[in-house]
């Protein structure tokens, strides 16, 4: 029961963060939202008993790829998109 609630909470957060990542106006915010998705997915992996995968997801997904996106954003002059 406890686990089910936890899964539902994580799932809802995942969906919200993913939607935010797609719809947010600011690119910086979208990148952070993608990082949040990775972080919560890694928590989910940990609960489901895959600590190896969770470690990779946390280090690569939430850590490195977020920062690489940020670097890319800053190298492309850091403009937010005007349309959509």
């Amino acid at each position, binding site marked *: 029961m406890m686990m089910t609630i936890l899964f539902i909470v994580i799932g809802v957060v995942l969906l919200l963060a993913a939607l935010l990542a797609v719809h947010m106006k600011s690119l910086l915010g979208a990148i952070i939202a993608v990082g949040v998705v990775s972080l919560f997915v890694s928590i989910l992996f940990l609960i489901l008993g895959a*600590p*190896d995968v969770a470690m*990779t997801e946390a*280090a690569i997904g939430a*850590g*490195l790829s977020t*920062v*690489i996106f940020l670097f890319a954003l*800053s190298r492309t002059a850091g403009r937010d998109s005007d349309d959509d």
Partner: protein
Amino acid sequence: MIKRVLILAVLVFFLILFLSRVAGIDTPAQLTGVGAGYVDRSVGELNSPNVVTAVVVTYRGIDTLGEVSVLFLAAAAISLLLGSTGKKNGKGGAKEKRSASEILTTGADILVPVIMLFGVYIFLNGHLSPGGGFQGGAVVASAVLLLFLAYPGFRLRHGILAALESLSGTAYVVIAVLGLILASGFLDSRLLPLGETGRIISAGTIPLVYTLIGLKVGTELAGIIDSLGGDR
């Protein structure tokens, strides 16, 4: 309008496809087939309490070699495209880089050695506890990343990095081929004595291979960060 209808139709098609697949799945109560084989045999054959490691490094070792090569290709392409064009934009260096806040530099000074040590622990202990070369390498690279954030002027020595990376890659392949010659197959980890279960020096070549992978992944990711964040 017709475009939207088409998109919706395609989405519904995929939804039906997925639902029809998902509906048939029920979690099996026990492992079957090759999975059961791995779990039964990995401790006895390879002396590696962490079954995932035994699968990744030995039974499916050639996949890991492929992954390492893919990462190597990606790192090579990035440094080719963005890499150290270095000294030629020397006048661009006149643009003063904003130094990081004191909180960040102090925090980095304390945390970087700890994170680095943790990464090394993850890949050295890969055969005993969750984790392994890729995870450890990524953690080591994130320590380097913290250094970059705290000290914007920080540069890596590319010569040492490249030498370490190619040495560990070569050693990995040499160990793999030695397994073919001296043990029973490519990447067979029973090249070295299996030792006592649970010791750090046990499970044949697994700790050695994971250390090499950890070094290689760490240096590659650090190189990617360097060429992305470097000389603007």
